[in-house]
């Protein structure tokens, strides 16, 4: 008995929701970044799983997408953390519900 | 005969595995990996013990004194004594420390160090875990060391530890680039990320004397030197040991550790050293290949460990010789010299490859490297130009 695609999708769904949880319910900007990273990872997991379970893809598209999205995620993390630091320099906080300058 | 001697360990492993014949294959997999792991640990713990005492002895010789020579014959049992001492020492954890992190840091650092050792081919058919992307695995695991160091620094909640960790991470990150980029030429030339393939590609000799090691090519030599320097930094060895510079910050990220945890850090440092040197041997020094065709009857693992210990000796030698560099000097060196040179190695390798690897290719790539080296050393000559001092007397 080997794990089926459903199981992988379930795992990635769980991971996604955990990421969402982190992004939604924590006040610290870095937590939000962590959550977003997790969601991205879940998506990657999906891609790779679909690649693995599809009959012989040529070329390995899922893997490629995963690789690229990892690269993009790295860039995103770098810029995001830079932003966090810059914000911290300005407002002396990274607590996102104090960062509501755009409030209408 | 020599073949059987060469493959003796492989045979032994097969024999052990044949004991649990008929078991489900995951059991067999588990068994073989366990065997590998224990072999690794056994070998390298021994090597660590040996190294620690030899280092002290050699340093002693360099500094014109006897090393440890009391415990056992020639003080060879010194490490045992040290081990016992370390084990029975009190394990102090600061009150303000972040207990979990403080506890996990040494484990993680040691684990990563050992993992990195797993992908290196120690002899013909003697690669513990032959992964297709072995080199990548090596660096992936190695890069987690930084996190471990940070954990140590943060966990023990002490400014010396933190500073040490910052320094360590800073220089590790800076030198990880040259370290990895210098492997690119080899990977490109061989066309594979697996250490076995790389070692295989370095087999064979030119008229039986000059081996096909990559260190014999100009780019290979340059890359090897760069790689070795970066390795020094990665394993925080002299002259790049600012992270634990006793004279500045007590013991860097290891300040708050005592007893066995300290020993673990110590061991991890040595294991890292072994791993880097092993990879250097694999990448540039032809792995387990014999230097001369005539000497191939000597078993491959002997050659490997010979080369490894040669490199380790150089480590010790440097430690005994060179003073400690300054942090900013290290950084400048990394970004202004190492990185460009590493890229140059790639270019030179490409030249070498597309000139069809002949003598002309050799000379061309040499020319590339020499030119860039000259240019760089002109450009980044940051030595302070002091005015000629003039003495004025009271008149």
């Amino acid at each position, binding site marked *: 008995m080997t794990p089926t695609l459903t199981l992988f999708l379930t795992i990635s769904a769980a991971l996604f929701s955990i990421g969402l949880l982190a*992004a*939604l319910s924590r006040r610290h900007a870095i937590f*939000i970044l962590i959550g977003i990273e997790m969601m991205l990872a879940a998506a990657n997991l999906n891609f790779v799983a679909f690649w693995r379970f599809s009959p012989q893809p040529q070329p390995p598209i899922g893997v490629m997408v995963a690789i690229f999205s990892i690269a993009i995620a790295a860039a995103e993390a770098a810029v995001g953390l830079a932003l966090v630091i810059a914000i911290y320099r300005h407002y002396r906080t990274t607590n*996102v*519900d104090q960062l*509501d300058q*755009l*409030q*209408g | 005969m020599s073949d059987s001697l060469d493959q003796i360990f492989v045979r032994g492993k097969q024999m052990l595995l044949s004991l649990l014949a008929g078991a489900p294959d995951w059991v067999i997999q588990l068994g073989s990996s366990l065997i590998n792991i224990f072999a690794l640990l056994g070998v390298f713990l021994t090597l660590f013990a040996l190294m620690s005492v030899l280092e002290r002895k050699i340093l002693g010789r360099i500094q014109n004194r006897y090393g440890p020579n009391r415990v056992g014959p020639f003080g060879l049992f010194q490490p045992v004594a040290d081990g016992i001492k370390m084990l029975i020492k009190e394990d102090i954890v600061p009150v303000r420390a972040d207990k979990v992190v403080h506890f996990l840091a040494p484990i993680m650092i040691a684990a990563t160090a050992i993992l990195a050792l797993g992908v290196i081919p120690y002899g013909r058919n003697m690669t513990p875990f032959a992964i297709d992307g072995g080199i990548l695995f090596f660096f992936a695991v190695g890069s987690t060391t930084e996190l471990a160091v940070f954990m140590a620094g943060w966990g023990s909640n002490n400014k010396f530890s933190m500073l040490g960790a910052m320094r360590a991470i800073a220089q590790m990150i800076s030198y990880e680039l040259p370290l990895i980029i210098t492997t690119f030429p080899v990977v490109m030339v061989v066309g594979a990320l697996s250490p076995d393939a790389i070692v295989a590609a370095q087999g064979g000799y030119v008229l039986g004397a000059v081996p096909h090691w990559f260190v014999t090519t100009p780019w290979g030599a340059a890359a090897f030197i760069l790689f070795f320097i970066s390795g020094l930094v990665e394993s925080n060895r002299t002259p790049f040991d600012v992270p634990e510079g006793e004279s500045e910050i007590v013991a860097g990220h290891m300040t708050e550790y005592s007893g066995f945890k300290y020993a673990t850090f110590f061991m991890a440092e040595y294991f890292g050293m072994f791993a880097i040197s092993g990879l250097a041997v694999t990448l540039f020094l032809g792995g387990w290949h014999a230097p001369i065709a005539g000497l191939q009857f000597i078993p491959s693992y002997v050659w490997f460990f010979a080369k490894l210990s040669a490199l380790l000796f150089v480590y010790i030698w440097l430690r005994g010789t060179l003073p400690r560099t300054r942090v900013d000097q290290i950084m400048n060196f990394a970004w202004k010299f190492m990185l460009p040179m590493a890229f140059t190695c790639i270019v030179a390798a490409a030249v070498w490859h597309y000139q069809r690897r002949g003598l002309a290719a050799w000379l061309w790539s040499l020319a590339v490297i020499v030119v860039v080296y000259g240019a760089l050393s002109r450009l980044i000559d940051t030595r302070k130009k002091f005015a000629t001092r003039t003495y004025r007397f009271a008149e």
Partner: protein
Amino acid sequence: MSWIVTNLWLIPAAPLAASLIILSLANSRRSAAAGLAIIGQIAALALSILAFLPTLQAPGYRSVHNFTWFTFGEQTLRIGWMIDPLAAAMLFMITLVSLCIFIFSIGYMAGDKNFNRFFAYLSFFSAAMLGVVIADSLLLLFICWELVGLASYLLIGFWIDRPSAAAAAKKAFITTRIGDLGFFLGILWLYGGSGTLLFYDGGNGCLEKAGLLALGASATFVALLIFCGAVGKSGQFPLHVWLPDAMEGPTPVSALIHAATMVAAGVFLVARVYPLFSFGAVDGVTPSLTVVVLIGTITALMASLIALGQFDIKRILAYSTVSQLGLMMVSLGVGGVAAGMMHLIAHGFFKALLFLGAGSVIHGCHHEQDIRKMGGLRRLMPISFLTYAIGMMTLSGVPFFFSGGWTKEEILHATVHWHVSHIPHYLMLAGVVLTALYMTRQMIYIFFGNRRAASENAHESPPVMTLPLIALAICSIALSVVLTPAWPWLHGYLTGEPAHFDIALLVQPMLFVSLALVAVGIGLGFVMYGKAGREDRHRTAETDPLEHVQPALFHFLENKMWLDEIYDRTVVAWSRMAARISDWMDRHFWDGLVRGFGGLGQLFGIFSANFDERGINVGVDETMTGTRGLGRVMSAWHSGQIQTYLGIIAVGMLALLILYAWLA
């Protein structure tokens, strides 16, 4: 097409580059600055000689190099440069003279604190002038022309801390602008008429058959308009007033302006576009040319008269320049183009010589410019004296040895053969006499007689200043070789006819006539001023002999025929009055009008204000409050919290998911 023709632009480029580099130099790098300027000038000279060579190979040689500058719409604007005997000769003269002047000014400006700036401007000046000379397009010529104006402005006002200098600079700039306005109109008209601004363009340039025919009768007006520019630049009668004031600049500058660059530009321009003037000429007479002759005559005579009444050494020279330019204009007008140009070139040399000599004298007399305070410098500054004498004789047109003489004769020849009338001819003869006269006067005042206040302890200038003098003197003598009617090489070179040697031509009636005239002039000078020189040394401000005889006339002359005053009374006053009138209009009439309208507006405003208060405001307020309430409700959604937004997005995604699953 030789290399130099395509790369003719290098000639102005060399001094320009020099000036740019000098400007970027530190103020302390004086030697470097001077060196650069001179190197640039030498390069230009070498290149001009290079450009001179091809023009020798065939008479009437001309080669142009045109290219498209830019394209707007379907129009393409083409500019280019050309080399022909005229341009080549001018190039040679300008570069050589400027070189001498540069070297001279090393010594002259040695003490100045803005040494570098001075040399930068000088280089820029000569670069612009060279551009004018090589231009093959009226547009390019105009651009360089204006650059020349700018450079002259910068240089005349070089000693900005002197109000008089600043005023003179402004005067020069504005006066020439008046001329340039006409010039510009002429350019526009020309472009409208012939559709091209290139002079020579393989048969369809504006100076060639096709272009001229296209222009037709309007050529006359175009020519006159362009002549306005020339009048402004080379100080012809109505607009000459700036030229004497330009003496406020340092002496090398005056030399440059008067000899090589600026004033030459006007004459050169007329010579360059001569086809426009002479288009449709009946035996060499056209309305435009007649005007040229008229102006030239007036200028020449007036200037030489005024020169008689001046005491400032440089002003005298300035007026002599004006008169000489008038002379050239006349000769151009009567059809003696070659003669005019020859005189221009010769004049370039000897006028530079004279000015530099004056500069050296001024330098020697510690920057004293009043000739009444000098005297007896003959022994103190021998080199200056000799060279100055040579220059004086050349200017006053002593035949045989001095280039000026021959060229003047050529001009007189030309004037004789003019069909309209002989008045110009006789007036020119008078002019020759006057020239000789005032030059003699100056010589006597400066060099003869006994010393006076300023020349008490005068000293000879350093070699760096005297060497250029000597060089120029030699030039202005040597030039006469190619000018003699016996072997009119330069004439042939300029007109394109082969010149052949014939000693018999050396002796002609005109020669004796001019000889006699000059003799009369100089003699008269000695008679009149001879004793003026030997006045008592301690009386500085003594009366001029002419003042004794004819006080009224003398004052008339001394005050430059009250031309400036007249301008002040008329042109300036008028413009002032116009300004005052319009000011008054503005203050009282228009202002009142505006106020009236304003009052009306206010009334209306009061009405509408009340209306607003009562009617509109209330309604608007209601609407506003409603909107504000709505806005508040809306902005409640806009919490500015990312997480809220994110949550909403998530919910939306969920909704979509459910919807999708449902449909599927």
